[in-house]
């Protein structure tokens, strides 16, 4: 599980960091090549991308015989979402987290919400 978690993270980092300008996504082979140092099998990378797609973290589009993958949202958007949870601004009624203290100004909350809204508008 931890190993798989590490792989998922590494793959997401590739999607986020190495192809920032390309909105059309990259293929499994390209991801595997970028992760060359890890010596991963093509199928392993495909499995990881498949899992991430299942969780809604990545989106994919078919191009010819291959799928092209890209992150469903930016790293900043995910962090913003976690912070909204953390500051109890996510609008959830469930006691999912226990917080030390909340410290957030109206401005900060607006910024966090805007980060999510931008992300939604881009797609």
């Amino acid at each position, binding site marked *: 599980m931890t190993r798989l*978690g590490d792989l*998922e*993270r590494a793959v*997401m980092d590739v999607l986020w960091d190495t192809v920032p300008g390309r909105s059309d996504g990259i293929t499994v082979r390209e991801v595997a090549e970028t992760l060359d140092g890890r010596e991963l099998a093509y199928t392993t990378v495909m499995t990881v991308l498949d899992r991430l797609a299942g*969780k809604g*973290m990545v989106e994919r589009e078919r191009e010819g015989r291959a799928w092209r993958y890209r992150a469903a949202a930016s*790293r900043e958007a*995910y*962090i*913003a*979402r*976690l*912070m909204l*949870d*953390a*500051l*109890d*601004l996510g609008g*959830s*009624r*469930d*006691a*999912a*987290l*226990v*917080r*030390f*203290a*909340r*410290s*957030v*100004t*109206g*401005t*900060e909350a607006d910024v*966090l919400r805007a980060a999510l809204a931008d992300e939604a508008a881009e797609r």
Partner: protein
Amino acid sequence: MPPWPTRRRSGRDDAVAHSLHFAASMLACWLIAQVLARSTWTWRSPRVAILCWQAVGLGAGLSAVGLPMSLGLTPYQRGTGSALLALADDLWHSTLPAGLGAVHLGLVGVGFGIGAVLLTTTVRSIHGAVRAQRRHRDLLALVARRDPTVPGALVLDHPGAAAYCLPGVRPRVVVSAGTLDLLNPAELAAVLTHERTHAQERHDLVLLPFTALCRALPWLGWVRKAHERVSLLVEMRADDKARELHADAPLAGALQRFAAAGNRITPAGALGLGDRDLAVRVQRLMVTERPPRLLGAVALAVTTTAAALPISLFLS
């Protein structure tokens, strides 16, 4: 030996007495909740106070189920528990006693309905929390990082100040980069102990029934009040653990910095709900008072009785 008629009358008295007892324990729970919500000794022994709230919640829930049931079961002229068994047996054989009408069955049904609502909202709360936690955990795995300054915790790269615990079998303590900037090492250590206490003592499970109650009865003011109080007590309990290990000053400092971090940019009224509670917690750390042992023991005895009464009625 008493003659036969006396025994029959005592059975009817018994059944009525049961309903009265349920009503009395419901009233007692409500009164105790009012007193608990107003008293401040609870801040000096949060653990005892949490137990009291749990007992009151259990007692109130059981009484709410038991009162209509016991009223509906009066024709059986015996204890609620054994009368329920007798009713089940009679329903199975389709031979209801003469005195038992539709109204009685309806009341028993209301009792079961209340029980079902309490149970389903609890289950839904658990379900919702677990789902939100899984989502949160998945995202953390992708974007949070480990940091040598906070061993065992995860760091979120965001300038806002947040410190929290994602509860569960494998809990995560998370702080934001803003918190790392905000606090000095001693304060940070105290905050991490605070969060680990939440995780170790499963404070999420302590809060869960109260969250569920709020969901089931959102219009009931005192249920919301109970939830608020228990949330604050849970924080105080974690504060106590942190001050045990790191002295008072770092924790109070951390709380004040959190409060000030919000106020720095927007001077007034922009903070969330926890604001007033934050002040209470800081004040509490300024003075060292002995926990009120006698008062705590009395409160615990009273609330345990309030919870034990409906339980014993169901078992009779």
